[in-house]
């Protein structure tokens, strides 16, 4: 027969151990003491958390390669609208589960970073009050034009206008992307380069094969296959 009330005393020993332990072993604590931080130095991005004296170093709430918040549009060069990757194909708009993306295609084509004339989004709005950060738009995008941002401090007193991100708010440079998701961005760039190389090789081969038949026609074919996303093959 166990001691009367023994279980209670055992439990009290555990809580006492935790009480004392919380003063000596920082890894017992779950919370960070950031009360010393002035309010204008509070973190804005997921990656900006701790790593200063008095905060837990074990805390893993840091930026990871896959941390995601709301989408952003990538552009390659310095002038956003000249180098925007998006061609307004509207696949993301169609696939977005909560349907928070609204795109209006431009009426005329414009040269993109690669120097090809392409459509571009005349309007690209994301309602982040609806967006649920699922990253489906990123996955279905055949042009790697949309990726996830990790900025989370979006609170605003303007409930409707402030939370509707316009195209120009969404445009971020590829360098910024490398900055917040280095590993993911590097992998993506590598894949794009590989695909491009493969495409170029294919194009070269196709061009060579076509030159034997008819030059003009082959050229037209290559352009068409480039303009059509891979995804549509899958969707068959």
């Amino acid at each position, binding site marked *: 027969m*166990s001691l009367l*009330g*023994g*279980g*209670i005393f*055992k*439990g009290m*020993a*555990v*809580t006492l*151990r*935790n009480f004392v332990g919380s003063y000596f072993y920082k890894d*017992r604590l*779950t919370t960070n003491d950031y009360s010393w931080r002035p309010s204008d130095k509070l973190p804005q991005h997921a990656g900006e958390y701790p790593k200063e004296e008095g905060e837990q170093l074990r*805390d*893993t*709430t840091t930026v*990871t*390669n*896959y*941390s*995601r918040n709301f989408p952003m549009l990538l552009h390659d060069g310095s002038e956003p609208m000249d180098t925007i990757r998006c061609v307004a194909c509207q696949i993301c708009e169609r*696939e*977005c*589960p909560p349907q928070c993306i609204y795109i209006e295609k431009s009426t005329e084509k414009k040269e993109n970073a690669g120097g090809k004339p392409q459509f571009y989004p005349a309007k690209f709005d994301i309602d982040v009050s609806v967006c*649920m*950060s*699922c*990253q*489906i738009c990123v*996955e*279905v995008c055949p042009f790697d034009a949309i990726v*996830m941002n990790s900025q989370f401090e979006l609170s605003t007193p303007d409930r409707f206008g402030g939370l509707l991100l316009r195209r120009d708010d969404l445009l971020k440079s590829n360098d910024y992307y490398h900055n917040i998701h280095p*590993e*993911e961005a590097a992998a993506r760039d590598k894949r794009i380069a590989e695909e491009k190389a493969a495409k170029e090789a294919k194009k070269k081969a196709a061009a060579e094969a076509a030159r034997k038949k008819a030059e003009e026609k082959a050229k037209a074919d290559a352009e068409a296959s480039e303009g059509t996303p891979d*995804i549509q093959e*899958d*969707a*068959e």
Partner: protein
Amino acid sequence: MSSATAIAPNYELIQQDGLETSLLEVSMGPHHPSTHGVFRMDVKLDGETVVDLQPVFGYLHRNHEKLAENMSYLGSMPFTDRLDYFNSMTNNWAYALAAEKLVEIEVPERADYLRVIMAELTRLVNHVSLVGFFINDLGALGTPLLYAFREREKILDLFEQASGARMMCNYFRFGGLRNDVPEGWLDRARDVVDHFPVFLDEYEQLLCENEIILSRTQGVGCLSRDLAISAGITGPMLRASGVNYDIRKVDKYSIYDRFQFRVPYTDGNVGDCYDRFMVRMLEMRESIRILKQALDGIGDGPVLGNAPKVFKPKPAEVYGRVEAPKGELGFYLIADGTPKPYRYRVRPPSLINLTVLRDMCLGQKVADAVIILGSIDIVLGEVDR
């Protein structure tokens, strides 16, 4: 003066001299500190004793099934996170399993291992926080809950590193996983898994012998084996009532046949809240065993096969199910040849386990009703869908 129409067999209100005690009707919920979400119980009390109980739900109904029927197969993957928002990984898995059956996609081995690891981590998260909530419902001032949340936090950090989100992971894809885990993740996971038993020992020391917990939970909310089977109860709750049924063992889906693990269950004598609590405590140990084996056995390779993102399956019917921490979670899909499912149906363990709430609560005290609800382990996202 309302009369108690339906009264549990072990509780008799004898009317003598024309006197009946006036019953107190209390609407517990949908905003009550212990109703686990927006759940309401219309309780009729005779003093402190529950004479009738009517569960009312639907406050969190979001049209999940119909939404999915108007969306491509991939599109409803993030919505499955929101079913049982504690265990998004297993929700994803069940849906992925169903869709993979539908379009016959192979899953790479590394992806399977990672899926097992994620699912078992999810089980740890669910059980540990459930026990915390359960003890909180018993009236402890959050201490076990916060210990549980500290451990949960470590696992959620792992999830965040892998998938970018802590709760709405949205990590599984048809044919594998969305992305591979980052470098060093497996070591961190191993570290967490190695330290978990230390915490469990402390937790057991804090809870399992506490006389108050014993007296509060033993003999309370008994669920008989027969009722459990005929009501379709699954998961730890069924095993606590003495039925050895675990889909991991029955279906051997994915690569569960490669691991050595045991399924704890009771002899079915009692099936009370204490049994449900203990079965979960024991299950956590087994999950750790699986995790250790999986972390040791995982190899290199791709995590996503050559599966298409958007597809049009041939007309077919499939049912994919996994052993979610709360019980059998199944997805039933009917494809009609379009990119959208013709019918999309979820078999949520929470809802079906909840159906026996009334049978378990009648004749108990109002405080027991709270802990019985806690021991069922419901998440309203899944109940209401």
